[in-house]
C-alpha cells in the first residue's frame, strides 16, 4: 500500500492495517532473522575453511621469508624491504608472548573450571590469629580469561595479516613492483584506509569498556556467581543453562517474578512512550498554532525541565510526592483530602504516578523534537481538511499523527527501548516499591532493569542479574528487529547519500 492510499483510510482501518502489518511482520521478521543467521554461519564456516586452505597453500608456495613469518612474525616484511612494518609485527609478537606468559596464562588455564584452589585461613600457632592464603579468584579468572581470549583473537588477526603482507610483497616482487615505504603506508591511513585511522581508538575503547565487560557478564549468566559464592572467599563455577531454566519454570518464585515484571515493563514502555509522544505533539501543535503569541515563552517554560539535570527533578519529585510532601500538604490545605494520598507507596497509584511524572519529564523533549517536523507538514493538507469541515481532533488523527508516525518511527523505537531500560525514574521515585511478597526481591513498580540492579547491588546475585540482562536484550532486539524490518528507512539507507 502506498502512503497516499494509506492516508485515505479511516483511523480504524489504519489501526487495523498497522496491527496486521505488525503481526504479519513478526513471524516474517523472526524467520528472516534465522535465515540471515544461517547464511552468516554458513559463510563463516566456508570462510574459515577457505582461510585455512590459503594458510596452508601460502606456506607451501611461499619463499623462505614467508615461511619464517609463520613462526617469527615480521621476517617476511623485513626481508622484502618493509623494515619498520616488520619490526612492528615482531614487537607485537614478542608483546603477545610476554602477555601470555607473564600474565594471562595463569588465568586462561583455569578458565574451564574457574578455579579450584580455595582460600584457606590457618591460625598462626604463635598468635592464634588467622593468616589468609588466598586461592583462586573465580571472578578474576573469568574476567581476565575473557580479556585473554579477546587479545588472542586480535593477535590472530595480526598474525594472519603478517602472513598476508608477506605473500602480497612476494607477488609484488614477482611482477617487479616496489613495495610501499612506511611513509606511504602512513599516508594511506589518511586516505584510502582512513577508516582504520578513525575507528581504531573508538573501537579500542568500546572493546575495552563495553564489549569485554559485556562478554564477561553474558558468561556470568552461565555460572553460579551468587550470594553464596562470593570470591575471593569461595569459588564459583559453570552451571550451564540453569539460571535460564530457573527464571522460566524451574524456580516458581523466579519465574513468577520474571513473568510479572516483563508484563509491567512492557505496559510501562508502551504507556510511557505513547503518552509522551501524543501529548507532547498536541502541546507542540498548540504552541505552534498560527496566531498564538509568546511561542518562545511557552517553549522556554517546557524546555527548562529538560535543562535541569534529570536526577535533580526526580529527587525533587520523590520529595514532593511523598506522604508528607508538599503535594499532599497542598491538597490538605485546599481541603480536598484529609489523609495523605499514597502517590508512591500504593501499588496501583505508584504506577500511575510514574507515568504522570514521566509525562512531565518527557513532553518537553517531544515538543523540541517534533516542532520542526510539524512545521513541515504541507499546509494544503490541513487546508483541504478545513474546507471539508474536519474538526481539530479529526485533522490530528487523520493528518498529523500518520504523517508524524511515518517520519518518526525510528525515533519512536529508540524511545521505546529507552523506556524498557528506564532505570532512573523508577529508582529515584519509588525504588521499585511498594514491596510485594508475591515477587522475589522485587516490588510492584520494578522494571526488569531495576530488578537487575537490586539483585546485583543488594543481593549480590550476579548470575541471576546477568541472565535478566540477557533477557532484556532479547526483548529489545526482537522488538527492534521486527519494527526495523517494517520500516523502510533502515533498508534504504543508501538512498539518502
Amino acid at each position, binding site marked *: 500500500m502506498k502512503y497516499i492510499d494509506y492516508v485515505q483510510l479511516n483511523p480504524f482501518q489504519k489501526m487495523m492495517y498497522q496491527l496486521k502489518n505488525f503481526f504479519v511482520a513478526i513471524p516474517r521478521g523472526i524467520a528472516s532473522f534465522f535465515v540471515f543467521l544461517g547464511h552468516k554461519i554458513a559463510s563463516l564456516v566456508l570462510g574459515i575453511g577457505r582461510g585455512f586452505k590459503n594458510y596452508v597453500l601460502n606456506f607451501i608456495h611461499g619463499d623462505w621469508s614467508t615461511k619464517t613469518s609463520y613462526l617469527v612474525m615480521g621476517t617476511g616484511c623485513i626481508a622484502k624491504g618493509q623494515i619498520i612494518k616488520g619490526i612492528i609485527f615482531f614487537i607485537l609478537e614478542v608483546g603477545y608472548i610476554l602477555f601470555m606468559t607473564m600474565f594471562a596464562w595463569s588465568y586462561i588455564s583455569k578458565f574451564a573450571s574457574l578455579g579450584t584452589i580455595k582460600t584457606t585461613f590457618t591460625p598462626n600457632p604463635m598468635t592464634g590469629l588467622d593468616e589468609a592464603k588466598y586461592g583462586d579468584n573465580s*571472578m578474576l579468572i573469568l*574476567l581476565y580469561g575473557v580479556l585473554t581470549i579477546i587479545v588472542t583473537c586480535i593477535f590472530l588477526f595480526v598474525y594472519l595479516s603478517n602472513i598476508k603482507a608477506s605473500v602480497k610483497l612476494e607477488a609484488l616482487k614477482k611482477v617487479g613492483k616496489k613495495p610501499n615505504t612506511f611513509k606511504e603506508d602512513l599516508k594511506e591511513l*589518511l586516505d584510502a*584506509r*582512513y577508516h582504520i*585511522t*578513525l*575507528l581504531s*581508538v*573508538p*573501537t579500542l*575503547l*568500546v572493546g575495552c*569498556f*563495553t564489549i*569485554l*565487560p*559485556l562478554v*564477561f*557478564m553474558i558468561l556470568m549468566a552461565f555460572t553460579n556467581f551468587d550470594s553464596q559464592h562470593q570470591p575471593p572467599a569461595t569459588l564459583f563455577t559453570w552451571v550451564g543453562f540453569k539460571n535460564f531454566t530457573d527464571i522460566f519454570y524451574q524456580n516458581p518464585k523466579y519465574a513468577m517474578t520474571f513473568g510479572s515484571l516483563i508484563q509491567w515493563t512492557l505496559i510501562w514502555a508502551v504507556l510511557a512512550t505513547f503518552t509522551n509522544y501524543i501529548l507532547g505533539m498536541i502541546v507542540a501543535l*498548540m504552541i505552534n*498554532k498560527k496566531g*498564538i503569541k509568546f511561542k518562545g515563552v*511557552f517553549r522556554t*517554560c*517546557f*524546555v*527548562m525541565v529538560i*535543562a*535541569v*539535570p*534529570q*536526577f*535533580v527533578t526526580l*529527587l*525533587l519529585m520523590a*520529595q*514532593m510526592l*511523598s506522604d508528607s*510532601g*508538599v503535594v499532599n*500538604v*497542598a491538597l*490538605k490545605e485546599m481541603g480536598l483530602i484529609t489523609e495523605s494520598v499514597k502517590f508512591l507507596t500504593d501499588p496501583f497509584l505508584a504506577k500511575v504516578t510514574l507515568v504522570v511524572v514521566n509525562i*512531565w519529564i518527557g513532553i518537553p523533549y517531544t515538543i523540541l*523534537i517534533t*516542532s*520542526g517536523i510539524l512545521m513541515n507538514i504541507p499546509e494544503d493538507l490541513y487546508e483541504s481538511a478545513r474546507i471539508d469541515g474536519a474538526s*481539530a481532533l479529526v485533522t490530528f488523527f487523520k493528518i498529523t499523527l500518520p504523517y508524524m508516525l511515518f517520519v518518526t518511527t*525510528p*525515533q519512536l523505537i*529508540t524511545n521505546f527501548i529507552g523506556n524498557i531500560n528506564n*532505570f532512573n525514574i523508577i529508582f529515584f521515585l519509588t525504588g521499585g516499591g511498594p514491596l510485594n511478597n508475591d515477587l522475589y526481591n522485587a516490588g510492584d513498580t520494578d522494571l526488569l532493569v531495576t530488578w*537487575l540492579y537490586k539483585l546485583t547491588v543488594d543481593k549480590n546475585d550476579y548470575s541471576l542479574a546477568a541472565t535478566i*540482562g540477557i533477557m532484556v536484550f532479547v526483548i529489545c*532486539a526482537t522488538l*527492534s528487529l521486527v519494527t526495523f524490518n517494517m520500516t523502510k*528507512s533502515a533498508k534504504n539507507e543508501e538512498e*539518502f*547519500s
Partner: protein
Amino acid sequence: MIKSYKLRRNISNGIIYAILTILSIIWLLPLVWIVMTSFRGEQQVYINYIIPKTWTFDNYVRLFTDTGIMNYPKWFMNTLIVSICTCVISTISVLMVSYTFSRLRFKSRKAIMNVGMILGMFPGFMTMIAVYYLLKAMNLTRSLVALIIVYSAAAALGYFISKGFFDTVPRALDEAATIDGATKNQIFWKIILPMSKPIVVYTVLTSFIAPWTDFILARIIMGDAIDQYTMAVGLWKMVDKDFIDRFFLQFCAGAVLVAIPITALFLKMQKFYVEGVTGGAVKG
C-alpha cells in the same frame, strides 16, 4: 461569516492560551518549589504548610562553608573537569565514528555498525561490575580519570544521530573535493566538519551534560571517596536517610546552583539541539 470565523478563532485561541498557561505553570511549579525551599529558614525536612515562614540565604552560604563532610565546591569542580574532558574526547570520537560510517566504504562496515547497534541494546549498567574491576586492575577506581575514560569510551556507540546528520550532507561535495586532490582526512576536517555545526554543538552539549546527570556509574566507581564525587552522587547522598536531616536544605540550594548553568547553556544552545536531533535522529 467572516466575523463568526474570527470569533471562533479567538475563542479557540483563548482556550489554547488558557491550556498552555496552566500547563506552563504545572511544569514550572516544581522548579519554583525547589527555589523557594532553598531559601527556607525552617530547618526540618518536611513542613506542613506550603510557603516558608522564614527566609534565609544561609543554605547557600553553608553549601560553600560547611564543607567538612559534603564538599559541594569540590564536587562542582570535579564534575566540571569530568564534563569538559569527556565532552572533548567523546565529541571527537563520535564525529569520527559517524563520519566513517556515513562516508567511507570498506569491507566490514555493515558488520561493525550492526555490532554497535546490538551493543546498545544491552542494559547499560549490566556491565558495571566488570568495568569496576577493569578499572581496579588499572588502579584507577575512585578517580576522576576513571569517569572520563568510561564516559568517553561509551560515547562512540552513540554515533547514530550524527551519522544520520552526515548522511544529509550532499555527497557531491566530497566528490568534487576528491577530484581536486583532497584526501579523505582533509575532506573530513575542512569540508564536512565546518558544515556540521548543529551536530557538533549537539554532541558537545549532550556529552557535556551527561556527567552532570549520571549517577549509578559514578557512585560505584567512587565508593566512599566523598571528595571525588560528582554532583549527581553528592546531591543524592545529601538526601540519603543518614544525611537528610542535616543537609536537605543545602541539597535544594545545591540543586538550584547546578541547574542554573546547565539551564542557561541549554536555553542558549537549544536551537542546535533541535537541529541536531531532527537532522539526525528522525530520518534515522
